[in-house]
């Protein structure tokens, strides 16, 4: 070794402020840095929709109308949260809509047929939902197929199983009424009650929605797990190379969607006492749309938990606003489509402007 010629480059780096590789970038203006936050675009959009309907439909200004809007938003919003986290993690779940019904059917039929306390059904439904989520995630990481295909498969399977098993068990497309069974009152209090604030009845799902959103935000921005979610969605191979447990992160994200499906399913069951087995189809796209409107990047790696809250609020606002304004509700979906495209274009523009060097 001693005979080696000295290599040409030996200079240690110069930590000086000059050209030592460090580019003293000009700090970007505050407005631009704010716009780079994923939830800012949708916040402005939600405010615009709110103001629009406050003007167009005077009855929206009443507290009870606003409570209805928030309730409508929360039923989408609770599910949009895990769907958004999953999307930030780079995947999506087409089975999320029918999985809600699967969960509700499981709890309802199990309790009714075995004549046990509804809590037994609720807990079994939780296990089933978490299992479906974990299975989706496991199949994804094992097969390395796109999540579109894997969850399209689960979506079709669940849709068929929901109908077939319900008909087999009850002889009907809907489940039997469970409202007189043991534990129904308690479960309803947890999943589907209302409470009064200033003379306005507010559904408890609104509270759960905001609690879950706060929790998701904290996890996403302040914990290791949140860091991993961004990383597996942003660049899965880089994440794996620096030691992020990619498989664990993906499977738990799908399991979280299972949890959301369970919660939403329980809300439906204890609100309406029975479940229609053919429902839920198409809802998965609503959740995905709420997440995308909320600033989550469909390809993963970027987004927030607060964004989808405003995204779901826009849905609820438009849905109810059209009714309050006395318009033909058939226009709802067309309105949504325009909103979705608008939100995507605004997000694209915002991101380009804000991350430009």
């Amino acid at each position, binding site marked *: 070794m001693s005979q080696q010629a000295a290599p040409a480059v030996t200079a240690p780096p110069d930590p000086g402020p000059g050209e030592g590789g460090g*580019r003293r970038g000009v700090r970007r203006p505050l407005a631009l840095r704010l716009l780079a936050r994923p939830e800012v675009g949708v916040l402005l959009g939600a405010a615009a929709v709110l103001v629009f309907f406050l003007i167009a439909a005077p009855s929206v200004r009443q507290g009870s109308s606003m409570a209805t809007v928030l309730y409508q938003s929360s039923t989408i919003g609770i599910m949009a949260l895990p769907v958004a986290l999953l999307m930030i993690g780079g995947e999506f779940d087409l089975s999320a809509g029918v999985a809600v019904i699967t969960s509700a059917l499981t709890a309802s039929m199990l309790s009714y047929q075995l004549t046990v306390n509804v809590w037994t059904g609720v807990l079994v439904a939780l296990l089933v939902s978490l299992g479906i989520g974990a299975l989706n995630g496991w199949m994804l990481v094992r097969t390395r197929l796109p999540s579109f295909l894997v969850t399209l498969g689960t979506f079709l399977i669940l849709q068929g199983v929901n109908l077939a098993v319900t008909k087999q068990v009850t002889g009907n497309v809907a489940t039997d009424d469970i409202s007189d069974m043991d534990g129904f009152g308690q479960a309803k209090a947890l999943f589907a009650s209302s409470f009064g604030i200033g003379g306005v009845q507010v559904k408890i799902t609104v509270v759960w929605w905001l609690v879950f959103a706060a929790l998701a935000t904290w996890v996403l921005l302040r914990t290791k797990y949140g860091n991993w979610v961004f*990383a597996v969605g942003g660049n899965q191979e880089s994440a794996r190379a620096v030691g992020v447990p990619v498989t664990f992160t993906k499977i738990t994200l799908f399991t979280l969607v299972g949890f959301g499906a369970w919660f939403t399913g329980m809300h439906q069951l204890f609100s309406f006492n029975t479940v229609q087995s053919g429902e839920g189809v198409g809802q998965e796209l609503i959740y995905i749309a709420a997440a995308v409107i909320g600033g989550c990047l469909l390809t993963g790696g970027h987004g927030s938990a607060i964004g989808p809250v405003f995204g779901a609020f826009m849905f609820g606002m438009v849905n109810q606003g059209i009714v309050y304004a006395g318009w033909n509700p058939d226009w709802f979906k067309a309105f949504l489509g325009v909103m979705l495209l608008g939100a995507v274009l605004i997000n694209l523009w915002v991101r380009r402007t804000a991350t430009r060097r």
Partner: protein
Amino acid sequence: MTTDKTGTHGAVLADTGNEQDRPLVELRGAGKSYGTVRALHGVDLTVRPGRVTCVLGDNGAGKSTLIKIISGLHRHTEGEFLVDGEPVRFAGPREALDRGIAAVYQDLATVPLMPVWRNFFLGSELTKGRWPLRRLDIARMKRTADEELRAMGIVLDDLEQPVGTLSGGQRQCVAIARAVHFGARVLILDEPTAALGVKQSGVVLKYIAAARERGLGVIFITHNPHHAYMVGDHFSVLRLGTLELSADRGEVSLTELTDHMAGGAELAALKHELAQVGGVDVAALPEADDLSAPVAAPSEGKS
């Protein structure tokens, strides 16, 4: 180089190695097959502290397979792989990291949409508090990342900016600084200069030299012999999945290295074909006889 018992070239140099010079990582006749495809075979490679080992080769020569074995992404299917003299089989990159082997990939170095400080600590986040309130220690991570980057000569005003907004050279440097901070003893750099301009490449080469000064063993993978010759102590040229050349700096000149890299004998044959086509000036191209590098092929031994 006597510790390299299966060395592919004659031990022209006298042994000056001592205990401190013990190889950190050593491959002996290592190879890897994907099913029936033999991507790599009979490769010997030694990495020592404070030395830069350059691995050169054309596309498809087996460079990526080689680093994937060393960094724990793939398992070798033949030969031996030793770390600190012990044979190892890594189950994943995490195990390689635990043994102090860190890889910095050209396109995998960072997650572009994540802030600099999150990228710096990705996979090894600092936390505070107890579960379930265990949370990221953001202030400490930002401070540490800033200190480490400054120590490598990278000064950033805003650690919140996404890594994707940095230049290619800076991104590589962030990844190198990260690997050094997390106690890497062996740094594998996969084509760190491939996508960079001249100036940015120079920045990266400086950090390679800096890493060597800090006593790290560096494996520098490149297909640019000029960059390799700037910082390298030992050169291994891969060709069709095996070693075509393995030589210390004193045994090979830049011209010879370039010729080997460019395909050596095949290039000379191509020259004759081009001469027959006509209209191509081939006078300046080397003849096969001109390639008098010390080592021709693994089986040839001394030149």
